[in-house]
């Protein structure tokens, strides 16, 4: 019973659950806002009805997601104070600033222009209306920068000083906080990955129709767009992911060691990357593995004779620095989430490259299994993104702010286990129910296909899009 009502454990589960859930909608919002903006721009420039139909098709799916992203985002904003009040007191002077900047610069912008976009089709001049979707897309990307800068502070705290008298961290350099090397690498990595997720959705939706040989006029260009974006953003995600792992090795070597489950410091050829490992449950003994020599050395240092510090050595170092305690994350979580992130991500680039080849010069493959694979693009690219964040956050443990504050010291002391249990159950129920509704609505919207837009205006030769109402 005491175990069940441990406020720390429950608060961690709640944070994990609500954050992952929120993040199911964020990358799609970022990626699909830009997708809608690109196709609306194409329509603006060419006047072709297909582009307008594609815009409204993916725009509709985007809005179903956007609503969920908005309402689950408020929970995130409140939760630091509700469940992590000691954290808020200790680092609020530093951590609050990027959140306030995010709200003032990005959320207002995004929330205002999305309303103008949804309801402005018949009220704004064409060019101005096009600008509103670009503003929405830019707002979503800017907001990502600030929240990643805030998160980067938890991974690699910079730009602050400890005020001993007040017993808290205080901001001394906002520039350093916003140009944290971890943020500078994690931001493009995350944005590119968000475009992969959106491309995954575009590919899945287009494949569903093309497999049935319908809506060829709209779904063919959509598929082509999705495949190219997947390849391009997949390469960028890899490139910036590489930069991020360099930053990670420099700032949080324990996370890299945990990603690899490397217990002893290894150099050169011994610093191998294991693609697959079977071991005893506690991870201490390896039974079988497939390894690529030198690869870990290269990933961590960009040289073939570099050394990668092992968990045992780092643990000893940290005990000396921070006192007795266990400084290792849960190894099987970091080890496997790191692999699934990379594996699923690369698999999508491969699928997209093959897809481009199979659909070259207007071909449409007849084999059903080709389309079946394509339809899995969306859920699996989203999964890659999620396990990536699970790795980042679980790899930070036991710290909430690396080297500064433990997660266990951050929890609200006056919120009881029962209260957290109540909120955890409430969030689980409402999020679960809404997930069912949301997924069904998205599938329904996809199956319905791109909406008709009627005949163009006989005088201008252009379509006059109908008003949107709730």
């Amino acid at each position: 019973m005491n175990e069940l009502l441990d406020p720390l454990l429950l608060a961690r589960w709640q944070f994990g659950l609500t954050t992952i859930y929120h993040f199911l909608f964020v990358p799609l919002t970022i990626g699909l806002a830009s997708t809608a903006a690109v196709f609306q721009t194409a329509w603006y420039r060419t006047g072709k009805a297909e582009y307008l139909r594609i815009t409204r098709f993916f725009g509709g799916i985007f809005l179903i997601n956007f609503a969920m992203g908005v309402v689950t985002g408020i929970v995130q904003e409140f939760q630091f104070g509700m469940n992590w009040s000691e954290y808020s007191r200790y680092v609020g002077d530093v951590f609050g600033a990027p959140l306030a900047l995010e709200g003032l610069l990005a959320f207002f912008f995004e929330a205002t222009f999305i309303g103008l976009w949804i309801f402005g089709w018949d009220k704004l001049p064409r060019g101005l209306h096009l600008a509103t979707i670009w503003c929405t897309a830019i707002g979503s990307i800017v907001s990502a920068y600030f929240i990643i800068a805030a998160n980067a502070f938890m991974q690699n705290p910079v730009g602050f000083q400890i005020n001993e008298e007040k017993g808290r961290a205080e901001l001394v350099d906002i520039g350093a906080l916003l140009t944290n090397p971890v943020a500078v690498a994690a931001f493009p990595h995350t944005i590119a990955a968000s475009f992969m997720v959106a491309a995954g959705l575009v590919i899945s939706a287009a494949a569903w129709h093309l497999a049935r040989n319908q809506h060829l006029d709209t779904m063919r260009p959509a598929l082509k767009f999705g495949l190219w974006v997947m390849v391009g953003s997949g390469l960028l995600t890899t490139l910036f992911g590489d930069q991020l792992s360099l930053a990670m090795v420099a700032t949080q070597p324990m996370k890299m060691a945990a990603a690899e489950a490397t217990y002893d410091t290894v150099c050169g050829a011994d610093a191998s990357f294991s693609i697959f490992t079977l071991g005893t449950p506690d991870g201490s003994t390896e039974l079988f593995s497939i390894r690529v020599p030198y690869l870990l050395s290269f990933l961590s240092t960009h040289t073939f004779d570099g050394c990668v510090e092992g968990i045992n050595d780092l643990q000893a170092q940290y005990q000396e620095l921070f006192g007795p305690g266990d400084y290792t994350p849960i190894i099987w979580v970091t080890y496997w989430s790191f692999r699934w992130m990379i594996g699923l991500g690369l698999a999508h680039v491969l699928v997209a490259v093959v897809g481009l080849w199979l659909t070259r010069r207007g071909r449409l493959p007849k084999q059903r299994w080709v389309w079946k694979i394509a339809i899995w693009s969306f859920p699996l690219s989203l999964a890659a993104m999620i396990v990536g964040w699970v790795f980042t956050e679980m790899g930070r443990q036991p710290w909430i702010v690396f080297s500064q504050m433990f997660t266990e010291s951050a929890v609200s002391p006056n919120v009881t286990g029962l209260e957290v249990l109540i909120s955890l159950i409430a969030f689980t129920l409402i999020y679960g129910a809404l997930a069912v509704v949301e997924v069904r609505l998205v599938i329904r919207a996809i199956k319905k296909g791109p909406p008709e837009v009627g005949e163009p205006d006989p005088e201008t030769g252009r379509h006059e899009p109908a008003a949107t109402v709730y």
Partner: protein
Amino acid sequence: MDLTVLWFWIVAFLFVGYFVLDGFDFGVGMSLPFLGRDDVDRRVLINTIGPIWDLNETWVIVAGAALFAAFPEWYATLFSGFYLALLLILLALIARGVSFEYRHQRPESQWKQWFDRMIIVGSAVPALLWGVAFANIVQGVPLDADHNFTGSLIDLLNPYALLGGLTTLLLFFTHGVVFVSLKTEGDLRERARRLAARAGVITIVVAAAFLVWTGLAYGSLWFWILAAVAAVALIAGWLANARGAEGVAFTLLAVTVAAAVFALFASLFPDVMPASNDPANSLTIANASSSTYTLTVMSWVALVFLPLVLAYQGWTYWVFRKRVTRASIEAAVH
């Protein structure tokens, strides 16, 4: 100027913005069972706030973030202390927000009924609980030496706070109904005007009781001045509504909400969370605030971006200034 004082008033301004704007769209949500006689009516009502509810709601996110950045201790004490109340507000805002977008996705009346209920409850719960929360802040709550709240949810549901909740609920409801009469036509517009007249009477009585109680127990000079402004604007707004001057009535009720919320902040100042058990445990603008450096950075950002935000949000309201008609709803594709 002392930056902690500036930020106290910026936080107040952000909450005022939130209650003025999201307040009336809570009111529109709550008016569904009173004004929505058929599905077209209900869709007209929802569409009056369709383009703006999201930007209105964003004010609470920004207010919360500003609180976090400028007064981390206040944010931590308030949000952890009022845990279950805020949980209810969050659940309500979640249910309400998705309903606007999901209600029109399917034609079945049962489907729409579900989301109508979520809009109604999701609007009423925060309208009530925000009032309860702010009344408790003004009244003071038990805090320990580390500024942690030591009471329970039951402590928060005291008569004074419940009266505060009822005040915001009624005020937002009346403001929302006046907004409906401003944004619709024909029968609905007339029914909204009459409903606002009736609801306005109860609102005036309850709000007067709450303001007088607050003034006698916790008031300062500035509180009384602002409360008087709120009271005069409320009565004038009621009169304007009775004469059918909808725009004037809406503006005056916005003034009422703004002056009343500023009055509550004025009665708090310079405390931010007074401790009811021991004044030594109170949080003040001095012991709850961030460092001067953080406040300086934030001040520059607010100085540049707040006017910009107000400009583009004002423009949005102007773009959607036309009345929503039954004909426009019936003509629109689903």
